[in-house]
């Protein structure tokens, strides 16, 4: 599965546009990591636990988007975009979407 945030793939022609595909997830870290993150707020620096949390969420959202694209019979997702929102304390909602296409 080819992912790109370009409109087209250089040198290849889009045979079929299969429409919008999307993947989203809401994830949280366990409370122990939340407490350490709270302590980290005193001294500053990277919040490794949350970097990890957002990374995991993004991976999962991407994976889900790819799954939808596969179900649609596509071999690439173009124009991929990510969006993040905070739906509840300590949890990250990540949303990935793009257009599923068949490349020749």
């Amino acid at each position, binding site marked *: 599965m080819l992912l790109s945030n370009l*409109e087209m793939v250089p040198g290849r022609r889009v045979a079929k546009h299969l429409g919008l595909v999307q993947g989203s997830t809401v994830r949280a870290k*366990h409370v122990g990591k939340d407490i350490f993150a709270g302590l980290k707020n005193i001294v500053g620096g990277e919040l490794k636990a949350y970097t990890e949390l957002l990374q995991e969420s993004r991976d999962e959202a991407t994976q889900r988007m790819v799954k939808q694209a596969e179900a649609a019979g596509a071999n690439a997702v173009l124009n991929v975009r990510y969006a993040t*929102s905070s739906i509840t304390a300590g949890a990250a909602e990540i949303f990935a979407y793009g257009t599923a296409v068949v490349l020749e």
Partner: protein
Amino acid sequence: MQLILDNLDVLFFVVLFFIGYVAGRWNERRHYASIRKRERELAGVLVFSNRFPPVAAAQVDSRLVSGSVVISDDYFKDVMSGLYSLFGGRVRSYESLIDRARREAVLRMKDEANKLGAEMIINVKFQTFAIGGRNQNSVKGVELLAYGTSLAPVRR
């Protein structure tokens, strides 16, 4: 009796929890049924995130269309989100909430495009906003906005 009075908050919790679960599930099932039905009805309006219209469609009427919805949390989902965030991992109870909101927003956008006679919406973008967000005492809900450009063939 004394025991019941002493643990009134537990009783409240159980009642709210039960109502939240039953009503929340019922609402969700009904909403999904309606989403599926309308998705079939509006299958004629195609959605893409492409920024450029197909080459063949030179003569089109392009308009900004959007659809938005705010879906509420229910008591059961709220309780579950607290438990999920205690242990970490997927906050499953909110996944269906966002899924429903997103599909509803797309449907409303499609409905608007359909009324304009469009067969296609391009450059679709989404915006999510958590109402209440981190404030515990506020009403909890999620707002989903979907917007794009509808392309309707020009009739002469």
